[in-house]
């Protein structure tokens, strides 16, 4: 593990910090929204430690706050998190070889760590990026959720600060190098169009899974490439 930290350069650390800072603001608002919806302060804290997937946490609390059952909340959250399976297939190797690294590393598999790992040019850097981003996000997110849950409603709407634009912009910046490849770009654009078209009709999380239609196109093109 020690060699990972030597691979870390200041630039990567700065990028990871930016993402972690965004996660902290969003975590604080998750804690505040949860207690605002009447949950005991420890429940969003336990949820953040064990689930560690912001989108599904907001979704689950939102479903219950809107009068839905806990079962419906769990189902909505799981649909949203199904994308982690293909993520794990893609970047599973960067976690490390040992069983412990795989077990712990899997818990850190989120959108940002996947994007950071994919954006690196060599496996050593990918591993360093994955772990540093994962640990920074985990600490920032969970500390902020505790703070938000305890401080409660004094935290304003994070979207007023444009935080909802920071997340897609960060992902987009990390994806740009991969999108230079023409076949990948075409598949990604097609996939995005499919996901957008499906959004009004399907539960959250399912439309992005449909994007793998785009992959069939690249798979067919590859033999000619």
């Amino acid at each position: 593990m020690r060699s990972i930290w030597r691979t870390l350069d200041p630039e990567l650390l700065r990028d990871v910090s930016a993402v972690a800072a965004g996660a902290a603001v969003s975590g604080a608002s998750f804690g505040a929204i949860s207690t605002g919806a009447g949950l005991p302060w420890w429940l969003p804290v336990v949820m953040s430690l064990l689930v560690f997937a912001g989108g599904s946490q907001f979704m689950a609390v939102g479903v219950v706050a809107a009068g839905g059952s806990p079962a419906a909340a769990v189902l909505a959250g799981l649909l949203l998190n199904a994308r982690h399976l293909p993520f794990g297939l893609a970047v599973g190797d960067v976690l490390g070889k040992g069983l412990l690294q795989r077990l712990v590393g899997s818990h850190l598999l989120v959108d940002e760590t996947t994007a950071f790992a994919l954006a690196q040019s060599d496996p050593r850097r990918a591993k360093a990026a994955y772990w540093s981003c994962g640990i920074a996000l985990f600490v920032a997110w969970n500390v902020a959720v505790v703070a938000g849950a305890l401080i409660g409603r004094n935290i304003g709407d994070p979207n007023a600060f444009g935080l909802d634009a920071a997340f897609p912009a960060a992902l987009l910046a990390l994806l740009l190098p991969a999108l230079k490849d023409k076949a990948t770009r075409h598949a990604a654009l097609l996939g995005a169009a499919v996901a957008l078209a499906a959004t009004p009709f399907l539960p959250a999380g399912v439309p992005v899974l449909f994007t793998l239609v785009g992959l069939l196109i690249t798979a067919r093109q590859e033999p000619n490439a």
Partner: protein
Amino acid sequence: MNLTAVLVLAVGTYAFRLAGPLLRDRVRLSGRVELMMSTSATILLFALVATATLTKGQGFAGLALPIGVLVGGVAAWRKAPFVVVVVLAAATTAALRFAGLS
């Protein structure tokens, strides 16, 4: 929301996460399949960018959000540092909302 629901969501989510790395241990992937896996993750993440930029719930997100992401995207394309991209996107959207654009 109760503790049982939280635990079920946690176990299910962890199972999704663990499945990929464990499957990769069992099966030796060819270079071609390996490339397909990372392409599929890129496609998924890009679709996530698109839906997070343009939709809120099942409707349109309004203009302030996509304009902010677009400004960040152009900055990234012009090779601006990552931190600048993120801050620029958030600041643009925040400024537009402050100015009254939804």
